[in-house]
């Protein structure tokens, strides 16, 4: 009878939290499009969007409005149900991943009640993320297949094979980190990275497992279908890739889900490797400010790290040309997977040797 023990206030609190998280990630994704154009412009000695509002800040709104106003075209020979399911699935999956991320330290109210800033503290959080991320490729595959267009189909084949190859390296590299943390729960991994310095070494996993971070970073580029691994879109070869036949807000959903994915991946990267909401000197802060403020500082720190990663993703995109398909596969299968395996082996040996 566990279910009946859940109080109404708990449910309402969670619903509000989910709404805030979804709204926040949609907002950040919206402004990522603006930021992407600005970053590209700065790197190419241009100014970027600057007409709509101050610094072009209303540009995403104008773009969204434009997408809504566009004519919606469903190709005659497409499979209509799957055609609509594709972008919906892409959007759903990218929003789903945020459920297990701990966004900040627990909120402590004046009456002593505690509210966790995490939608669900499942003890297999990392597995959930892997599952949700690998579902993401279904959105692309379904949409591309349903649109009955050979370029879309080729793009989805590329996307699927790329996702499968890089998920292997991603998973194997993560095993080393999970062995160190001894837990699959996101909350626990974050708590282990408390502060910044403990017992003569950094607490953050990026310093304990730099190679895992490296492999994870490269694989997340591939999982996101972003340059330099944007084989799925590949506008110079495959017209528009998997969304060639899409128009209006369905296209918008695909593009948007990509940016949400980027935000969530940035949050995951900062949670797993850069200490999540932990920051140097947080114990001192906890002792000196009210607990409410302390929680919000934690959230702000996590978002700051995530924004840093988003900028880094954009930075890479506008720097490196696209990998050729065989190079991509060579890198995935012949370099990253063996590298991750060796790293896992060494980590396991070290843990066995020192701890037991």
């Amino acid at each position: 009878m566990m279910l009946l023990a859940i109080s109404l206030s708990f449910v309402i609190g969670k619903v509000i939290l989910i709404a805030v998280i979804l709204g926040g990630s949609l907002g950040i994704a919206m402004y990522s499009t603006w930021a992407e154009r600005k970053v590209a412009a700065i790197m190419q000695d241009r100014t970027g969007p600057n007409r709509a509002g101050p610094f072009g800040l209303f540009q995403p709104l104008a773009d969204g409005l434009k997408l809504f106003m566009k004519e919606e075209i469903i190709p005659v020979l497409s499979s209509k149900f799957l055609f609509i399911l594709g972008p919906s699935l892409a959007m759903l999956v990218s929003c789903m991943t945020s459920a297990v991320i701990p966004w900040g330290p627990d909120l402590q109210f004046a009456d002593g009640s505690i509210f966790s800033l995490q939608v669900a503290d499942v003890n297999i959080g990392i597995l959930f993320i892997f599952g949700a991320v690998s579902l993401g490729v279904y959105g692309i595959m379904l949409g591309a297949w349903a649109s009955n267009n050979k370029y879309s189909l080729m793009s989805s084949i590329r996307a699927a094979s790329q996702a499968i190859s890089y998920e292997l390296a991603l998973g194997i590299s993560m095993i080393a980190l999970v062995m160190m943390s001894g837990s699959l729960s996101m909350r626990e991994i974050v708590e282990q990275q408390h502060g910044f310095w403990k017992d003569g070494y950094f607490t953050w996993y990026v310093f304990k497992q730099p190679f895992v971070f490296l492999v994870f970073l490269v694989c997340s580029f591939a999982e996101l279908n972003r340059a330099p691994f944007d084989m799925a879109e590949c506008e110079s070869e495959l017209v528009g890739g998997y969304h060639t036949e899409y128009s209006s807000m369905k296209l918008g959903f695909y593009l948007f889900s990509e940016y949400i994915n980027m935000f969530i991946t940035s949050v995951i990267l900062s949670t797993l490797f850069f200490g999540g909401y932990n920051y140097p000197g947080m114990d001192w802060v906890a002792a000196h400010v009210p607990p409410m403020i302390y929680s919000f500082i934690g959230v702000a720190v996590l978002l700051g790290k995530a924004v840093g990663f988003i900028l880094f993703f954009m930075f890479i995109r506008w720097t490196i040309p696209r990998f050729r398909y065989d190079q991509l596969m060579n890198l995935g299968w012949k370099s990253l997977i063996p590298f991750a395996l060796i790293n896992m082996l060494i980590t396991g040996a070290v843990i066995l040797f020192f701890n037991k």
Partner: protein
Amino acid sequence: MNYNNISNRAKPVDRHPMTFMEKIYLPAIAKGLSITLGHMFHKKATINYPEQTRPFSENFRGLHILNRDEEGRERCTACGLCALSCPAEAITMESAERKKGEEHLYKEEKYAAQYEINMLRCIFCGLCEEACPKDAIYLTQTFAPSNYKREGFIYKKEDLLIPNPKQITTNN
């Protein structure tokens, strides 16, 4: 390898297999990132057009004007030399004789009743300006604004004539 290296700058394509450092990509990526990072601090090439304009060169040849003399009379006598010199055949005109009482309007006995320049044909070479014996036509430092219709680019005499200096002073 047998090729004609005329310029002495041609290099054979380097097809050596990738070295280990090249295979791990990271040094090359770091180099690329440093280049793009450097570009953050470069001067922007953009000119925000309506607010800023690019300065024209001193001898820029733009839109034509038809000149008046100090008393506000049209200088053009419709001699047709500009139309003759025009390599793009953009200028047409119709002459008329000055009547009694029109001395304050036209400088000489003959004047252009109609004068048209097709700005879509014009190549802004400035030969009309050079050909004109009466200092009547000049090229300015502006260019023709955009238009929705082709007819809009055929500039009539009224569009080309500069405002009458006398009228401006009287209005003020």
